[in-house]
């Protein structure tokens, strides 16, 4: 159903943009009620141990303080673990705020002060006296390797490594060219602009309206109802605007629990917002140690791939992600062995962060591929092209599409890759060594269950509703475009209602699946509206559409017409009048098609080319140019799509050069917990970025032919930067981020 586009595919500016830049878009913590209370968390200052004494008396006496909650006076909440499991919960025991005197991670909330104003809550929290019996923390993954294990309960079966194929060890031993190295990634911390916050509006009849920073209003809704035993119809959760999330907002955060708890207990509206510092205590990209071994024949054909990944998790949950499986599907190879383990650390449970797993795993694989290219002595791009594969060997399935050749070709062409000299340290510009590196990117192209409601009124106004979220990605805009396209109306005629738990069921906004899933649901619902209109039209006397079937009609210029002949049709206002209705509203629902899934795998692909310049003496690296070509099926809106990729690339540069949670392993605490000391790229670190979307037709991946874009932009970027630094300097840095200290310490390899 890939019709010629009229609105879909246009670079529409995001429709929520003016609201955001004028301050009219209100985020979770920007809603107010009279008589509202404000909550503030006191985070633990040890990584593991017990609270032996917690004295809140001074805080309680502080002017304006209404109540101080600790584990000693927490109101009764659900006991059974199943009640605490949210939609994307992990195997293990879900963190329950203020549960008991145990401390399991630095920053764990141990008290919640509720006061008549924010300042009183904040100031009083500092007056709470806590004594701990602290245990020795174990937070260094390298030290905890010995205690690693394969997750006994998989988070998702897709995350489990594929069965080994061929004889990877044997082939490795015999191959003429081989490399085997360890790659280490420091933990990264989410820092979206918007802090986690929840505003709970309490009404006298017991109903709650909650503005929550989340990527899934229904996930927060169900969590709140389950944990507090509330009737689903009495709770509405809204997230109409989300100031960035990147995966940190998938699972309900403790401020939601605490604000609802206090609201129900005190029968008042309550707001709770985290501090920037608290953002460092949860849902981080786990520290990760990987070993990648690659072997090739004399021509560079891969003979063996072995990839072992070890990630950190918490004591109480088994966080898992797909780090290494990419190595089994990326290139043609018949001898593959992949393994994945985790190790418990005295830290909070890691969580999904933009391209979870792939961002780490593909960085290791694609750096290793570059190392292999130099071992074999062929161009790194040529090595990838030689090992191109058109099927998914991991799952022994066909691919729905893979326009990766076009990505390589178009990005290389635009970048000027053909002018590259192979030898490291062979290109210079003034005092700077110039390096060109590249990498391939992979991400899953997923469809999740999604519903949507679409209505068309007799005056041509369209309303789309779904419990989807726009986390800054452009969901409002693209759903508008899909609906406008379906009815042949202008985007101004379409209203999109999302970010509300009472709207049609939608999964959390993650995995890059929202555009494909909700977009398809809108299209299905719109088609259902057309079908209903046709039914009504056929009930009209002497209907010109009497013999038409659903797939022969469409809406154009306010009329339901035959696709083949727009002269034949009826104005939909007349159809509605005849049927005695003022609007037609229908539901649409999509879910992955089991038959397609059985036969096909679906991935998004990219090729990333990076130029770095590195001062020859001082070894300060800077990324001067990035060209990314992406194959992601149909592009609904090139403007919002491009922004997604740009953001991913910038985050990839951060992963390559800057981002790192610095842990004091003596105490198990992250010490650079602010944006002055936790570095993300500044404007000066980002120069020329180019995004190319290559043509890719895919009628199987989703009903509207869309693959997601939220994640693919970051994947491969850190590897391409690392490969470019090697090309510039001859130094191979296998420890990310590649900060100046590592460059100084590394001898030249060439």
């Amino acid at each position, binding site marked *: 159903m890939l019709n010629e586009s009229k609105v879909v595919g246009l670079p529409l500016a995001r429709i929520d943009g003016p609201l955001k830049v004028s301050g009219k878009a209100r985020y979770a913590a920007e809603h107010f009620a009279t008589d509202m209370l404000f909550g503030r968390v006191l985070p633990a200052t040890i990584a593991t141990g017990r609270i032996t004494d917690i004295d809140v008396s001074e805080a309680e006496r502080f002017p304006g303080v209404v109540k101080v909650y600790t584990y000693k006076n927490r109101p009764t909440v659900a006991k059974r673990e199943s009640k605490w499991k949210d939609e994307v919960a992990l195997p293990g025991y879900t963190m329950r705020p203020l549960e008991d005197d145990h401390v399991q991670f630095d920053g764990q909330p141990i008290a919640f002060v509720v006061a008549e104003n924010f300042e009183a809550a904040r100031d009083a929290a*500092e007056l709470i006296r806590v004594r701990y019996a602290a245990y020795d923390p174990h937070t260094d993954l390298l030290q905890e390797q010995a205690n690693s294990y394969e997750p006994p309960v998989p988070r998702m079966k897709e995350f489990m490594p594929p069965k080994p194929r061929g004889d990877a060890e044997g082939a490795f031993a015999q191959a003429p060219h081989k490399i085997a190295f360890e790659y280490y990634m420091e933990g990264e911390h989410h820092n979206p602009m918007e802090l986690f916050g929840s505003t709970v509006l309490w009404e006298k009849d017991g109903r709650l309206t909650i503005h929550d920073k989340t990527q899934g209003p229904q996930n927060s809704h169900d969590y709140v109802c389950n944990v507090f035993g509330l009737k689903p119809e009495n709770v509405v959760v809204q997230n109409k605007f989300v100031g960035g999330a990147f995966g940190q907002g998938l699972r309900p955060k403790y401020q939601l629990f605490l604000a609802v708890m206090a609201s129900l207990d005190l029968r008042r509206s309550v707001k709770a917002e985290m501090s920037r510092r608290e953002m460092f205590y949860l849902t981080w990209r786990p520290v990760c140690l990987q070993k990648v071994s690659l072997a090739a024949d004399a021509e560079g054909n891969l003979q063996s791939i072995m990839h072992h990944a070890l990630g950190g998790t918490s004591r109480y949950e088994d966080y898992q992600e797909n780090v290494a499986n990419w190595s089994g599907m990326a290139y043609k190879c018949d001898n593959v062995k992949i393994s994945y383990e985790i190790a418990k650390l005295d830290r909070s449970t890691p969580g999904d962060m933009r391209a979870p797993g792939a961002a780490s795993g593909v960085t290791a694989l694609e750096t290793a591929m570059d190392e292999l290219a130099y071992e074999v002595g062929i161009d790194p791009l040529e090595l990838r092209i030689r090992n191109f594969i058109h099927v998914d060997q991991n799952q022994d399935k066909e691919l729905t599409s893979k326009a990766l050749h076009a990505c390589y070709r178009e990005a290389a062409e635009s970048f000027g890759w053909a002018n590259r000299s192979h030898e490291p340290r062979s290109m210079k510009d003034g005092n700077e060594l110039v390096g060109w590196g590249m990498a391939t990117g992979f991400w899953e192209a997923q469809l999740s269950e999604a519903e949507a409601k679409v209505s068309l009124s007799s005056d041509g106004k369209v309303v789309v509703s779904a419990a989807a979220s726009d986390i800054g990605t452009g969901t409002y805009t693209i759903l508008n475009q899909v609906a406008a396209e379906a009815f042949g109306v202008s985007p101004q005629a379409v209203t999109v209602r999302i970010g509300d738990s009472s709207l049609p069921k939608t999964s959390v906004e993650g995995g890059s699946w929202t555009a494909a899933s909700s977009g398809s649901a809108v299209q299905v619902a719109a088609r259902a509206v057309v079908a209903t209109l046709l039914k009504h039209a056929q009930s009209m006397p002497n209907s010109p559409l009497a013999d038409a079937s659903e797939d022969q009609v469409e809406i154009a210029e306010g009329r339901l017409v035959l696709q083949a002949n727009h002269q034949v049709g009826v104005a939909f206002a007349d159809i509605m009048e005849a049927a005695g209705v003022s609007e037609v509203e229908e539901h649409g629902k999509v879910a992955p098609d089991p038959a397609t899934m059985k036969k096909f795998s679906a991935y998004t692909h990219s090729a990333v080319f990076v130029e770095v310049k590195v001062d020859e*003496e001082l070894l300060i690296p800077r990324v001067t140019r990035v060209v990314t070509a992406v194959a992601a099926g149909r592009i609904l809106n090139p403007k919002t799509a491009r922004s997604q990729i740009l953001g991913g690339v910038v985050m990839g540069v951060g992963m390559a050069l800057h981002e790192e949670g610095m842990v004091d392993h003596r105490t198990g605490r992250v*010490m650079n917990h602010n944006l*002055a000391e936790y570095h993300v790229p*500044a404007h000066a670190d980002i120069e020329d970025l180019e995004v190319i979307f290559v043509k890719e037709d895919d009628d199987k991946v989703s009903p509207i032919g869309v693959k997601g874009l939220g994640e693919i932009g970051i994947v491969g970027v850190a590897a391409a930067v690392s490969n470019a630094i090697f090309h510039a300097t001859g130094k191979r840095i296998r420890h990310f981020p590649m900060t100046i*200290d590592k460059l100084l310490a590394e001898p030249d390899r060439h």
Partner: protein
Amino acid sequence: MRRFDYTRAETVHDAVVALAANPDAQLLAGGTNLIDLMKYDVARPGAIIDINRLPLKDIEELPDGGLRIGALVSNSALAYDERVKERFPLLSSAILAGASPQLRNAATTGGNLLQRTRCYYFYDPSTPCNKREPGTGCSAIGGVNRIHAILGASDKCIAVHPSDMCVALAALGATVEVEGPDGNRDIDFADFHRLPGEHPERDNMLQAGEMVIALRIARNHFNRNYTYLKLRDRLSYAFALASVAAAMEVAEGQIVDLRIALGGVAHKPWRDALAEAEFAGREANEATFMQIADRLLSGAEGQGHNDFKIPLAEKAIIRALKQAAAGRPQDQVVKAIQ
């Protein structure tokens, strides 16, 4: 954050009297550091004396062609002042290497001198820190210390001074004008900040009740051969891992007068005037610059994570001296190192 009393001073005298009368009081100028510290519960002043209305916002000519800079002149106003750009371009360049435009608009000259030192642990009140709470110990020693001092540290404190502006002022040999309950006094810039020693809680030599009212910089000949080279973990809006303010007078390939100060490596801007004097008359070439680097870093000692700062500072010194000697100062907008 703790509650505090707020008053606004209308005259320097009022401010000094109020400050002297209350040991728990602190002055508020741009607030770019103090307010952060209060939010983090690191600074807990019982009283804030707002000095933003004091008449200390002028840059005045001195008879010798030098300049007197009021304590409340903003970093931006100072950096972009035509006289500063022409006579003391090193100062202008150093200021523009620091912070962000927004911060430079708010931050003041006096406040820049009085920034607290940089250390993860100092900023986290739940950790022991001799600077915050004397006698509790230094958490950075043996902890996360890649940003810490390689020169002049003590076993009580290894924090570093964060300023870029002060590194240039140290090299230029500015004078700090101070007013206190007992009147005015001058402090040489080199003596204004102090090393941690046994008392890391004290960052500078101000006595109780004293405030900075101005800086004086005497006319010099360092407006041709100078540079401010700042090396950091990202290309803007990051503190220095190591920075170098270098200036020299060169005649016929020889160093006539040399000034060099280092930032990001010690509890104060690091300058060694004796060492500078030893190199007068030497050839302005790489061999000399290497010796200068050796001399300046002779006592350098790493703490583990920051060991790399020693070779980094060495390379930075040599490069900065090359830039200065060549009259090719580092451009603070162009990110390639010149």
